């Protein structure tokens, strides 16, 4: 019964990422879009917090490219089609509005 958590706010001005990590179950995954991808900037505390997620961490490719962010952690870059696919594959999607 896994949940896909979707974050779209920058972790530098907001506590959503920390709260999300607090309730992330072992099979859950995290998808970063919009300003949330700023959390993958190399060398930042947010990036260090995200690194252990490895294959459970996704980011929208266009949001990384649009912001010229090159993460140095293990992350799965996806497009919108894959986003939709993931939404279906998981039991539920929790969007952190």
């Amino acid at each position, binding site marked *: 019964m896994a*949940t896909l958590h979707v974050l779209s706010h920058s972790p530098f001005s907001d506590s959503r990422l920390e709260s999300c990590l*607090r*309730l*992330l179950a072992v099979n859950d995954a995290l998808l970063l879009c919009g300003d949330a991808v700023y959390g993958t900037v190399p060398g930042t505390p947010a990036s260090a917090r995200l690194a252990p997620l490895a294959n459970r961490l996704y980011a929208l490719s266009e949001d990384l490219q649009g912001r010229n962010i090159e993460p140095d952690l293990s992350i799965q870059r996806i497009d919108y089609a894959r986003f939709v696919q993931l939404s279906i594959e998981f039991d*539920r999607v*929790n969007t952190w509005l």
Partner: protein
Amino acid sequence: MNKSMLIINRQSPWSGPGAREALDIALAGGAFDLPLAMLFLDDGVFQLMSDQQPAQLEQKDLAANLRALPMFGIDELYVALGSLDERGLNVVDLGIPAQPLVDSELSALIARFDHVITL
């Protein structure tokens, strides 16, 4: 069979429309007999504080509405113990009874529901 939904409420009561909107979702869902529960997380725990005086802030009372939730069939209210601790609060400070959950119980709670929304 109606799908169940958990509403995660993480906004402080008077900072914006978030708290009121979460309540509106709950009441609308309750009116349609959806199996609903609410989890108060982060600053959302401040919504449950006893003896608030919203009139001082020219706001409408939220507590009365929260207390009315069981009448709409929503009697599962949960609060994150970690969020209370961080804010120097205790379960006894709450004017609205909610079941306290430790961090490890939060993911199990979410897994019980078909849908989750976080406001």
